């Protein structure tokens, strides 16, 4: 029999993932189908022919029957994203998604001229500059290594505008230095900041898990870690609690949530840890924020003060047309709002022009910019066009180095602390990534994606899941659907995060000890070597092989 092939019909082998299914192992319990948030599976019946023998002696006969089976939908709308929830719930190991390297999805998924949108991070830029860098300057003789377990280490970084020694309002009185004037606010915090993921982008439970982990790390383990709220406001009770001091409030171009923040100010019993003005984001530079309507649930509408619709933060801050102007308007107003007691920092996407911006801010005579956060191309997002994720952006490693060296040239290193993000810890080695960035000149790093991966996100940079934008997150982390949110055990998620950070803290010691340092080696590039000559040259560190 000859079949006419309809080549424009969509079939499973056109999609990113194919479901491997063993009907003999399947008990038809239906768990896989009910678990799949993307409705990528369905029950079907198949006609089967097989041979049976029922008598005391072999009496084979051919029979036909119809068999209920689980099948993948051949649909772009309901395509399998490889999240593996079906495999997780199957009691008999009968089903699992398998990556289809011959996928045609990227060519076909444009109904009505739509662009492909997704969350996650770039799936193309997999080069890892940091992996070619080693901590190669090991103390052995003249400068002996330290004992990572017994020695005391001071693992903290400044957050806030730092004045030069000749600018400090200090006078000598009775052989002591005394403060004789006002100074910009600054505090010493852990060199890793839990990055800016909003309530809205994250489920309330996931956001809460990060809050809990932050509080536990501070209060129980004395690790002064700070988390950034993301653009989307905060629960009023948290703003009026003592825990506000661990939170950096973010303001971005949509100003989402700021109405409630401002209204809460009179009732705040603690100042927030800082304000982060988001100008750009490494995952989608030049693009604004985006929260799809699917995720704008009732509580999100309340926190942000918006109706249910796609929430777009503009790609620029309306009314700010120059760096000088932004310093005058936005930074000053944010400083003034908290009576000049809270550091105000800026977050930008790493770009060819980042150093110019940094230089300009360093020259700001009012000393009001308290941190320069640079986010690289390997940063994550809850929603973006795939073309932005994969094809726009700038690696952050050399850009941080460039910014640091630009400050060195002016003798102003450290005046505006440099914080780098975008792919930090993306291979699980957060301590090593942070440590190398610090040696290159960063004061610390900020992280996002790795946090949700620790909470339970199964998405990765090889195209697995990345459906943070759909509201259908199968792990309950990036969704506002209360049924899905129930999947996340908030306490276990927070515990995993705390455990990971405790191990990062230990790993920091294991990196500091061999180079003989008990405080953070900010700018100590001589501690690093690279096995890649081009990288070594660019970063001005030794090439080794």
């Amino acid at each position, binding site marked *: 029999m000859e079949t006419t092939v309809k080549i424009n019909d969509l079939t499973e082998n056109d999609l990113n993932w194919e479901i491997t299914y063993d009907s003999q192992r399947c008990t038809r319990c239906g768990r896989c189908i009910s678990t799949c948030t993307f409705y990528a599976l369905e029950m079907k019946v198949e006609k089967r022919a097989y041979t049976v023998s029922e008598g005391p002696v072999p009496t084979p006969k051919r029979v036909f029957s119809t068999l209920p089976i689980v099948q993948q939908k051949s649909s772009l709308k309901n395509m399998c994203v490889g999240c593996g929830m079906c495999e997780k719930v199957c009691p008999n190991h009968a089903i699992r998604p398998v990556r289809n390297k011959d996928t045609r999805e990227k060519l076909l998924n444009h109904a009505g001229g739509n662009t492909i949108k997704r969350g996650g991070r770039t799936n193309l830029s997999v080069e890892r500059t940091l992996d070619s860098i080693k901590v190669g300057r090991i103390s052995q003789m003249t400068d002996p290594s330290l004992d990572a377990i017994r020695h005391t280490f*001071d693992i903290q970084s400044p957050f806030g505008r730092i004045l030069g020694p000749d600018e400090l309002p*200090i006078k000598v009185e009775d052989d002591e230095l005394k403060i004789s004037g006002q100074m910009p606010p600054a505090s010493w915090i852990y060199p890793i900041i839990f990055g800016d993921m909003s309530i809205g982008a994250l489920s309330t439970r996931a956001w809460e898990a990060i809050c809990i982990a932050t509080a536990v790390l501070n209060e129980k383990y004395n690790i002064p870690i700070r988390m950034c709220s993301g653009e989307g406001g905060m629960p009023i009770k948290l703003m009026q609690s003592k825990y506000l001091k661990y939170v950096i409030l973010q303001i971005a171009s949509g100003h989402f949530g700021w109405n409630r923040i401002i209204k809460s100010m009179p009732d705040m019993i603690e100042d927030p840890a800082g304000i982060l003005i988001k100008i750009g984001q490494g995952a989608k530079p030049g693009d604004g924020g985006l929260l799809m309507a699917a995720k704008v649930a009732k509580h999100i509408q309340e926190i942000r003060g918006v109706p249910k619709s796609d929430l777009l933060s503009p790609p620029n801050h309306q009314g700010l047309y120059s760096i000088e102007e932004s310093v005058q308007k936005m930074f000053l107003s944010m400083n003034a709002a908290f009576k000049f007691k809270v550091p105000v920092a800026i977050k930008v996407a790493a770009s060819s022009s980042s150093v110019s911006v940094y230089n300009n801010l360093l020259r700001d005579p009012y000393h009001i910019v308290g941190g320069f956060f640079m986010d690289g191309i390997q940063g994550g997002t809850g929603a973006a066009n795939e073309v932005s994720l994969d094809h726009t952006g700038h690696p952050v490693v050399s850009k941080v180095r460039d910014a640091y060296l630009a400050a060195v040239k002016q003798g102003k290193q450290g005046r505006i602390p440099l914080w780098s993000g975008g792919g930090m810890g993306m291979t699980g080695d957060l301590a090593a990534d942070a440590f190398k960035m610090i040696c290159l000149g960063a004061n610390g790093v900020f992280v996002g994606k790795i946090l949700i991966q620790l909470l339970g996100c199964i998405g990765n940079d090889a195209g697995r899941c990345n459906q943070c934008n759909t509201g259908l997150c199968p792990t309950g982390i990036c969704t506002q659907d209360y049924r899905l949110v129930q999947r996340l055990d908030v306490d276990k998620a927070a515990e995993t995060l705390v455990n990971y950070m405790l191990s990062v803290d230990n790993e920091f010691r294991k990196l500091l000890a061999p180079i*003989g340092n008990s405080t953070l080696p900010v700018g100590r590039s001589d501690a690093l070597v690279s096995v890649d000559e081009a990288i070594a040259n660019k970063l001005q560190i030794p090439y080794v092989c």
Partner: protein
Amino acid sequence: MCRIGCIKSLDPIHPAKALYLMLPQQKGHDNSGFAIVMTDLEGIFSKIKDKPMLSYSATLKGVRIVESYMKEKGFSKVFTWEPKTHSKVGQDFAKMPHYGFEAYDLPSGCEKCSPEERESLLLDVRLELRSILEQTDDGYVFSFWPDVLTIKEIGNPNHIGEFFGLWEEDDRIIGRNIMIQYRQNTNYDIVRYAAHPFFLQGYVLCANGENTFYVKNKEYQQSLHRGYLGFESDSQCFLYTLHYLHHELAWPLSYYKQVITPLPFEDLTNHPNKVVLNKIRESLAHLEINGPNTIIGMLPDNTLFTVCDSKKLRPVVVGTNGKMVAITSEVNGLNVIMPERNSEKDIYPNERETVIINDKLEIKRWKQQ
């Protein structure tokens, strides 16, 4: 490890005393250099204490360059000490053709200059001469300051001492403060400028160990002051930080320790000066050191002090017999020059101490807390 030492005495002493302080501390292949700085000079220098003295070594062409430069700048030479040298077969060090120790009258008009202007002039002359001589590799300028004498050479310290006749005590070449190092930092190129003690506008300093924050210190210091240059040794950073804090910022000496080895954050939580200490830590984070080091320093008024890194990974001891105080790496040196002293009163400074000795040999122990 470099062996370092300094003697401060009520009565002027000869450099031989310092050589004997260091001799028993020699170990292994300590033959990479020798340097000595003497201040508060007497003997043949007693009548020119207020005249800036240029200490340098040069080729014959270099000598002519120096003469011509000083003349052009209006300095007139009023005193020269030409050490009687003793060359012997087998002396293991790189000799320069000429060693100059010359005192000058300042150019006319300088009598009206403020002390700061004079300090600045003397520094500029030294830096410019250094730069000129460097261009043709014709010499090295170590100090240009009143009442200060510097000798630096590369090679076997014992032989260098022998060459300059420093092993035999006399009352001609004497001073009340002598800072010395046997063996220079060998981690980088062995050059004369890398030999401690280092000198800048009356500040003298030597150190041992490795400055693990060398790159951080250097990158920051390069833009702070025109005199912060060279960096042939990672220990020069300690001198520049001292000069910057004490001379440029005019902060009390105790803040040297506060800046280079800040108190741990947990000790600052309830500290009465928490705000100031935090602010200077933030501001001067790039001047922090992370050891392992012992530093011996001297201020322009000849106040002597020693501090360690916060891990105290290098030895140092302070001893006195009432007539002189010595700070040095190892106690066996003290036993040679002051065998009669009460060694029970020797001070082994801890990682949070600054030990300060004034001209009356009063010893003050200041604890960073």
